[in-house]
């Protein structure tokens, strides 16, 4: 049993049950979805619940946020579609900032340790969470991760979420800010196609700008779309592999890290 939150698991994959094959499911689901296919038992009673499905996640997120505040840990939740460049961006960020601030990374992927290994190669601490079937990290898993890691006070904690522009938007991890990475090879209409994510984000990093000459991507249109769903979103254009404008991002981070009391 976990001493911190009272749960019986050590990581979030253990609670996941095996997925039943589709045809198997369809056979077993032939019962009562029409409404009243069950016999009514005389002791049946109705209970009002009125409970939000995300309540539990939100309360773990609040615990994480309190912990980060207490220890002055500046936490970012990085989200994007698969391959937008989150890990590349983090590796480059670490190279430039690790001598100025302690940095820790939590990597979320459905499978493999590959991204955590890429981070560890830079010399900073990284923990990989494999979410298995789940397409997003949740606050409970992060709560365990931060207790397993040795996250220094007055430091940066970067959480790379599972590559997915839909689901992670609903799951608060307790982060200070959500950063959405969009790469120019994905199309300039992504902000209005996945409005929830761009609405929830505080900062959009428009990555792979070195590829702009080769793709049909209207930067101004993309920014208009992003502001349409989120008028307050900050936007930085950069290239994580070529380094163009990368210092605008590291300056943005440095400013916030220096402001920690």
């Amino acid at each position, binding site marked *: 049993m976990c001493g911190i939150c009272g749960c019986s698991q050590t990581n979030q994959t253990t609670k996941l049950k095996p997925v039943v094959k589709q045809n198997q499911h369809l056979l077993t*689901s032939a019962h009562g*979805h029409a409404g009243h296919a069950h016999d*009514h038992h005389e002791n049946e009673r109705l*209970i009002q*619940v*009125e409970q939000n*499905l995300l309540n*539990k*996640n939100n309360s773990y997120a609040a615990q994480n946020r309190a912990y980060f505040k207490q220890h002055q840990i500046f936490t970012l939740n990085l989200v994007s579609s698969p391959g937008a460049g989150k890990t590349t961006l983090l590796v480059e960020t670490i190279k430039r900032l690790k001598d100025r601030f302690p940095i820790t990374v939590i990597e979320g992927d459905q499978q493999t340790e590959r991204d955590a290994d890429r981070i560890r190669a830079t010399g900073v601490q990284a923990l990989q969470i494999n979410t298995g079937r789940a397409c997003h990290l949740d606050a409970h898993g992060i709560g365990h991760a931060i207790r397993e890691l040795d996250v220094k006070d007055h430091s940066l904690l970067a959480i790379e979420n599972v590559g997915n522009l839909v689901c992670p938007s609903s799951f608060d991890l307790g982060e200070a800010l959500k950063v959405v990475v969009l790469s120019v090879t994905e199309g300039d209409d992504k902000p209005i196609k996945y409005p929830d994510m761009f*609405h929830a984000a505080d900062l959009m990093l428009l990555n792979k700008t070195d590829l702009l000459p080769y793709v049909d991507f209207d930067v101004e249109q993309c920014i208009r779309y992003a502001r349409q769903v989120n008028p307050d979103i900050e936007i930085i254009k950069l290239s994580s592999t070529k380094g163009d404008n990368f210092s605008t991002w590291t300056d943005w981070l440095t400013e916030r890290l220096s402001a920690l009391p």
Partner: protein
Amino acid sequence: MHELSLLENVRDILEEHAVTQNFSKVTQVTLEIGKLSCVEPEALRFGFDVVMKDSLAENATLLISELDGLGLCQQCHREMQMKTLYEPCIHCGHAFVRITQGAEMKVKDLVVI
């Protein structure tokens, strides 16, 4: 499959209520899902039996009550139907309409033994 982890939350909520409200079996679960909530009712129906298997809600009936999207214009203060989370006001064209209904995703009630 975001819906599967939401269903795991449903199962957790049932298990907690079983302790506090003293029941051992759930025969019907009503969820309230807003049409703007980015949850697909079909995917919930699809995953329900799988996630509830071997729990106190095994074989329970799932009812989903879908709520239409409604918004209140922050400028002219009139109400309107919303098909998406971000639509300008149909009355005055103002860009920001606050969602008043349709973002729900919750367990409304249960029939238990």
